């Protein structure tokens, strides 16, 4: 066992840091207060990701046959950490390189690959993920948005909600119902967002402009070739995608960086001497580092080619605990940070508070840990 990064991994991290330092100049920090899905950051990312692509750090973890360098899971982790600490300058394009690209490569038709992969590699496409619905959140398999095959076209009717990036996305990775068989009746359709019949409505929120949306589908018609995989194959494909994205965003790194910022603010005001503040800060740091190590234990399994199971839920929950602690610390001890004194801490807060809801809630992680890590007898259904 070795808890230090190798010199190569350190060098890779520094390469990214140097790049970020050179390219996130001026008032980037204030700018990053715009959420990752805001028009401002989306436009910024369209330029920034081109530069990343040119520097070879947009998708270095992709296999060589996809144009990547075939770097391993640790490098993918390091890349994600550095981007997230910096305020995620890739905006929504992080999804492209984390799971949309690899999923297209594995399940896409030649035509779909030709159409969608190339713009991703140029840093020029934005996707949204149309999974959740008003009545299908945690219980995703209850989704009802219908796709009916009529004369070689799918006609889609229904509603999605909480869809990040929908306002500006080019394409939607959409889950639809093609039969009543719960999980086996779900089918993926890749829908261009400018197709007639799609209405996107932004939802005002605590987490910045442009982040979450309602998306309505009224007789939206796309050719049958827009189907991704077979009818009924969505659950399998999504499981594969999540395997690429199991740990989700490395939120614990931003939480830790935010904690360090908050401490620096307190030190600057000579308010970090009081013992209760120091102890609470240390508690937060312990939770951040706990999340880091729990996540790293899962990354190691990827490195070793082992299948990743419910331990990723344990790591996810550890991350939620860390985010919660740091968000609470900032509000309690540097409340001014969220009222203009620190764009960085406000940015962290707005991203941190969703940790226990987005991409599978904290309680659902606990359910998974109970059943699949602790192997407790199942709850009656």
């Amino acid at each position: 066992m070795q808890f230090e990064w190798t010199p190569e991994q350190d060098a890779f991290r520094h390469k990214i840091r140097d790049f970020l330092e050179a390219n996130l100049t001026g008032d980037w920090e204030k700018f990053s207060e715009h959420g990752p899905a805001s028009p401002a950051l989306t436009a910024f990312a369209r330029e920034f990701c081109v530069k990343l692509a040119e520097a070879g750090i947009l998708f270095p973890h992709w296999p060589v046959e996809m144009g990547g360098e075939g770097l391993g899971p640790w490098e993918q982790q390091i890349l994600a950490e550095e981007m997230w600490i910096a305020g995620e300058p890739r905006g929504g394009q992080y999804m492209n390189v984390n799971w949309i690209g690899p999923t297209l490569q594995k399940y896409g038709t030649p035509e779909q690959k030709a159409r969608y992969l190339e713009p991703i590699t140029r840093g020029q496409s934005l996707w949204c993920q149309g999974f959740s619905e008003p009545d299908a959140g945690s219980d995703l398999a209850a989704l009802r948005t219908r796709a009916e095959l009529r004369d070689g076209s799918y006609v889609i009717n229904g509603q999605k909600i909480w869809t990040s990036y929908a306002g500006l996305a080019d394409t939607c990775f959409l889950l639809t119902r093609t039969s009543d068989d719960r999980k086996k009746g779900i089918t993926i359709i890749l829908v261009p967002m400018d197709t007639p019949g799609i209405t996107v409505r932004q939802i005002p929120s605590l987490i910045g402009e442009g982040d979450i949306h309602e998306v309505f589908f009224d007789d939206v018609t796309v050719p049958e070739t827009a189907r991704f995989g077979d009818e009924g194959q969505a659950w399998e494909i999504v499981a594969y995608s999540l395997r690429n994205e199991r740990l989700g965003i490395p939120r614990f790194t931003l939480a830790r960086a935010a904690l360090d910022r908050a401490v620096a603010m307190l030190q600057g005001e000579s308010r970090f001497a009081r013992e209760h503040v120091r102890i609470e800060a240390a508690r937060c740091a312990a939770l951040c580092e706990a999340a880091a190590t729990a996540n790293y234990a899962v990354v190691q399994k990827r490195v070793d080619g082992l299948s990743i199971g419910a331990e990723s839920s344990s790591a996810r929950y550890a991350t939620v605990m860390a985010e919660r602690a740091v968000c609470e610390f900032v509000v309690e001890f540097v409340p001014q940070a969220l009222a203009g004194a620190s764009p960085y801490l406000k940015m962290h807060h707005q991203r941190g508070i969703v940790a226990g809801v987005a991409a599978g809630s904290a309680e659902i992680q606990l359910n998974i840990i109970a059943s699949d890590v602790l192997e407790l007898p199942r709850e009656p259904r």
Partner: protein
Amino acid sequence: MQLALSEDQTQVLDFIDTLARPYASVPMHDASLVLESADLDAALVESGFLDVMAVEELGPVTAALVVEKLARLPFAIEAAASVMVRPLIDLALPRPLCLVEEGRIGGPVRFLRPGASVVVVGPSGVRSFMADAGIIAAAQVDTLYAYPAAFLTGLPDCMTSHDVDAAEVLRAWRVAVAAEAAGLLAAALAATVAYVSDRKQFGRPLATFQGMRHRLAEDQVMTNSVHWLALRAAGTGSRGDAALALLHAQEAAKQVCYDYHQFLGGMGMTLEHPLHLWTYRLKLLTAELGGRGEQGLAASDALWG
């Protein structure tokens, strides 16, 4: 970063499993507040597992793994201090090794008995002496903590000074206790999971009630991360990591000890079920080195000055 067990580590842990198998379960209905085994202790000394830290290809992470593993046994074994702290001071110090903080010698001292080595750590440096009956006061006979423990009535006038940085010893001590706590947490969780999966009320196993499942899952998350933080602290040798590891372990201990006794209902109050052998060791460890607050301050000093 490489978090998989090495072949050597797997082998050491397998050996310990084999050696400790006869001691892995408790003689039920043995109304004892603390279990010790001289035979197990002797076997461990003989096998050399308490000396892994000094073996170059094994080192501190393996030492922490050994301490963690042994702590899972229902028997209290003086391993943490001997395995992880003694090599920094003097490998020749006779066991058991009792670590006490200068200026804070009033609490129950684990494993204190005549012949034990007592190491006093603090601003005056690192000093040791061999305890004799004259300086020991027995703890109450039915002390609840599942460690053998006694009190020091004072310090002798003459102690051996050791040429080692007290801060380094404190660091290793924190890691050692965190590793021990990690093992205790894992064993207590396993015992509780087994009980609530078996015990039925309202016609179904207790473990099928979500109120219990979620708390057990949270306890698993804490247990898992205490394990990793302890190993990492052992591996990096950083003072900040050590303080964070023990802080997190003491936080976890507080949370789970309450939950597990709760989940066993009346059975959790008995000596019939072995749960207390792990939880009451954990409880005493929450007081180690001044408790959570002191670890918090130490971590804060190390991280932010």
